[in-house]
């Protein structure tokens, strides 16, 4: 039997009261989960705990201000709480057991060198077969909290203590490749997203303005080639809509294309041929000439590889270098199988099927006409945004002797973590370790038909992972121990 409605009952107020206590519980739960993760302690670096702290304080401040939250804003608070709750999964998945933990500290140190010491990275697996970069979290949270006018942004910044000046990103890698540290050379590309965003934010609009008129005219001409399937009265309106739509798509294709190409350029700049090799291997199961319109605006892989090959050009040529008064020939017998393999990419990029695919459509044709014309200038601008390796790219041909030593170690089942013989030894760089691992792997595959079973790969991964950890510890603690020797 329906109850008689009270004259003071209001549906909005009734639902608001439910939402208010529900949000209180949600905020408390997120705060508790974040606290638990913050103190879990089983992470390879301190960054997951930092993100936990950011989430904990943000949930706490949202919860504390619920009594003063305007009713019409409760829905936004709910949205924000749900979003930050989702971020807990990045932390949860970055536990030691889920990651190639022995290379995480060394990798974060390497990435921080490029992105700045206040930039932190969480590295976590994802079941989706892809690498990507998510963030930056602190700024996203700051923007969201700032929009909630009843909360003081200064209070929030005080609550998260020193984190307000930090940047936190999350790099994801395919779970099934957890131990495949050679493929993780793709992380060079991912840090490129920070640089690419900076370049796009600061330069893309200007680039677009300078090209827009020409693109607009080209699109109009293309549309004019075919009669429109409407009565003449509506032709102008339809044409305008089509032009606007296609020009907008040209912009999206160009923007996404440039983003990925800048990332590739950064990857090669930092890691040299190891980045190219990882890209070749990653793209092996994919169609390499697919139009950006069919691939979420991503450039065709053949196009990307072509630009990476171009950036590695000097490593694909022969050189003679002076090395401690000795003439060293590059590639030399150790590196040659890998060098030959890399040079075969020039055959791959001579095929212009990707260009044909791009030219077959006005949108991709116009976008890539701009990219192609401006690429060298854009690449130089982007590389200058790197903090450390902006001027000098990694070149394999300059590292012949070191790479030979590291490969020699791998050939004898020894981690490639050191250059030189005792007592004149020093930790190898992450760049050299990864490149040596690729040289070894391709050399083995090419020279020994029996090599390449799972055990072989696992042993290689184990040794390389051990090497990255050993060189991190060596470079972090070695100098402190050396200073103790002198006391």
């Amino acid at each position, binding site marked *: 039997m329906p109850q008689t409605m009270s004259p003071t009952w209001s549906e909005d107020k009734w639902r608001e009261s439910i939402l208010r206590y529900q949000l209180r519980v949600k905020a408390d739960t997120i705060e508790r989960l974040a606290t638990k993760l913050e103190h879990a*302690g*089983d992470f*390879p*670096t301190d960054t997951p705990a930092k993100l936990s702290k950011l989430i904990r304080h943000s949930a706490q401040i949202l919860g504390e201000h619920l009594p003063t939250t305007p009713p019409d804003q409760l829905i936004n608070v709910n949205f924000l709480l749900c979003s930050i709750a989702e971020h807990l999964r990045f932390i949860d998945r970055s536990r*030691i*057991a889920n990651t190639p*933990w*022995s290379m995480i*500290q060394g990798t974060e140190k390497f990435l921080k060198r490029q992105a700045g010491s206040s930039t932190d990275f969480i590295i976590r697996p994802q079941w989706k077969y892809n690498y990507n970069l998510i963030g930056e979290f602190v700024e996203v949270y700051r923007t969201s909290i700032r929009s909630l006018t009843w909360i003081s942004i200064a209070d929030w910044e005080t609550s998260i203590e020193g984190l307000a000046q930090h940047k936190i990103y999350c790099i994801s890698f395919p779970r099934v490749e957890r131990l495949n540290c050679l493929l993780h050379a793709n992380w060079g590309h991912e840090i490129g997203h920070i640089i690419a965003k900076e370049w796009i934010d600061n330069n893309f609009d200007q680039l677009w303005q300078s090209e827009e008129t020409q693109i607009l005219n080209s699109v109009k001409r293309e549309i004019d080639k075919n009669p429109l399937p409407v009565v003449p009265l509506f032709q102008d309106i339809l044409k305008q809509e089509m032009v606007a739509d296609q020009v907008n798509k040209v912009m999206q294709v160009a923007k996404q294309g440039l983003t990925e190409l800048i990332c590739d350029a950064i990857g090669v700049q930092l890691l040299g041929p190891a980045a190219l090799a990882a890209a070749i291997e990653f793209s092996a199961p994919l169609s390499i000439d697919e139009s950006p319109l069919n691939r979420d605006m991503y450039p065709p892989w053949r196009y990307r590889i072509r630009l990476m090959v171009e950036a590695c050009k000097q490593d694909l040529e022969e050189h003679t270098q002076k090395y401690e008064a000795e003439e060293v020939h590059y590639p030399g017998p150790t590196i040659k199988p890998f060098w030959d393999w890399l040079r075969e990419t020039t055959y791959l990029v001579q095929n212009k099927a990707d260009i044909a695919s791009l030219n077959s459509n006005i949108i991709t044709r116009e976008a890539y006409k701009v990219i192609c014309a401006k690429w060298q200038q854009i690449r130089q601008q982007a590389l200058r945004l790197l903090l450390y390796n902006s001027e000098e790219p990694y070149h394999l041909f300059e590292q012949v002797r070191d790479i030979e030593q590291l490969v*020699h*170690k791998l*050939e*004898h*089942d*020894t*981690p490639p*973590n*050191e250059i030189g*013989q*005792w*007592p004149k*030894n020093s*930790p190898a760089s992450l760049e050299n370790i990864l490149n040596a691992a690729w040289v070894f792997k391709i050399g083995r595959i090419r020279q020994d038909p029996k090599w390449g079973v799972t055990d072989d790969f696992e*042993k290689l991964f*184990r*040794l390389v*992972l*051990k090497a990255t950890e*050993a*060189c991190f*510890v*060596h470079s*972090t*603690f*070695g100098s402190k*121990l*050396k200073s*103790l*020797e002198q006391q």
Partner: protein
Amino acid sequence: MSTLTHAEIEKRLCEDLPSGLVVTPILSKNQIGDASIDVRLGNQFIVFRMHTFGLFRPYSTPPASLRIMQERQVIKFGKEFVLHPGMLALGCTFEYICLPSNLECQVEGRSSWARLGLQIATATSVEPGFKGVLTLELSNLGTIPVELHPGVRIAQLFFHDAKPKIADAYGGIRKYKCPVGPQFSRITDDKDGKVFSHETNEDS
């Protein structure tokens, strides 16, 4: 069998692979003593989950279920691992070791730790040709918990010539190949143990 002294150890460390001795990385030259090399504690440990397993029967427990009784822990450099009285944990050396075919080595705990009740290695002999980190059987025989930090000098390696040189040192099918962390017991692989085990002996 002669023990290598400081000069000979350094000489062997300077030799190239595969005939040279590898202990890597040696972070401080102070690690090389008069007749030994100090090795540091690695950051991986295997501890036992006593609450998930009843009785360990070496010859009838399926190898896969052995995972239930062990838990791998990684402790960051700078953090600590606490070994409580009566507790056994498997640790490992931070250094990766490659022994040439004419050298064997003995692992001994450092006396400074022994005096705190810490026993470090019980399977102390390492055969010529071994490559990998060494698993350490850490147990606290004392009465107070001991805090261990990855990176501290934990044990000493004494090297002895093995004569004549072994042709295929540590070759063939071996239980522990190129490990980079502590290895759990593979006692279940011992075929001859099964002959004497009533667990698998149908006639018993």
